[in-house]
């Protein structure tokens, strides 16, 4: 492993060699034993990682927990639906029946009729000659 490869690995896995893949950590230790530049890079990487870990010092606002619990009871509980449908033995069948019935009703109201009312068109064709004769126009 060269110094540059060591730097690239530091950027990928951080300064804690215990988090590195074992084989790469072994190579890194060999580089560190002989390269001052690699040791400087490790020190800088450790400093950055420690600064980042300093951001762990944080406490969530005190009101959040009670606000979540309040919303649990006021926003409704959509979580009931899935287990209700899945767990009962007869519920999937009931759900399928309800979906089928809904589809049937939708079909009745929305689909175009198979035999539309053609009365007006038939009458027009049947009596077009008579209409022409009475009104003295070409059929």
């Amino acid at each position: 492993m060269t110094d540059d490869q060591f730097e690239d690995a530091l950027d990928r896995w951080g300064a804690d060699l215990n988090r590195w893949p074992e084989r790469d950590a072994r190579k890194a230790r060999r580089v560190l034993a002989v390269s001052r530049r690699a040791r400087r890079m490790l020190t800088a990487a450790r400093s950055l990682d420690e600064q980042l870990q300093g951001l762990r010092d944080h406490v969530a606002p005190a009101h959040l927990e009670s606000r979540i619990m309040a919303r649990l009871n006021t926003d409704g509980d959509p979580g009931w639906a899935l287990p209700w449908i899945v767990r009962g033995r007869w519920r999937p069948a009931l759900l399928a029946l309800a979906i089928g019935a809904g589809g049937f009703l939708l079909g009745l109201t929305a689909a175009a009729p198979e035999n539309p009312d053609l009365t007006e068109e038939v009458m027009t064709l049947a009596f077009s000659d008579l209409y022409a004769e009475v009104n003295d126009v070409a059929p």
Partner: protein
Amino acid sequence: MAEDDDDVLMALVQQQRDQHAFRRLVARHLTGIHRYLLRLTGSAADADELCQETFLKLWARADSYRPGRVRLGTWLHRIAHNLAVDELRRPRPEGSEALEAAPDPSAGPEALTQSSRTRQRLEAALAALPANQRSALLLCQVQGFSNAEAARIMGVSVRSLESLLARARRTLRTRLEDIDGSRP
């Protein structure tokens, strides 16, 4: 398995809709999730709102949690991450950049200690990273996840995550050096 183990409490939530067990899970994971959301969005108001949404989703989707396949903390972070990414994608009104958690490092009063100045510089440099790089770095260095867990939370391959981490660390190092170099 201890009686207050995450998976035991989740089983109570799944089977009995036990609000007491749920409250214990909220108390346990609230600070971690809030810290991640605050650093990722840079906005305390967004972090508060998304934090609440995360736990409400945990309650609503408790049945889809499978103990043993993934730790609850990882699962919660994935929910929080997805909510934050959606929020960050939303167009924001001009001038409302969500950087309130990262004050200007050069504007600190003299009374600031060296350590708080260092922290402000770091927060500003972190906030300026692209969101996916910031997320990768936060998950691994601040939240303490392994690279594999962080990749799972972000929904990317481990190789992609490591590439994000490498770019994030390089950029952060350069920015911190620039800030140090520009100080009188």
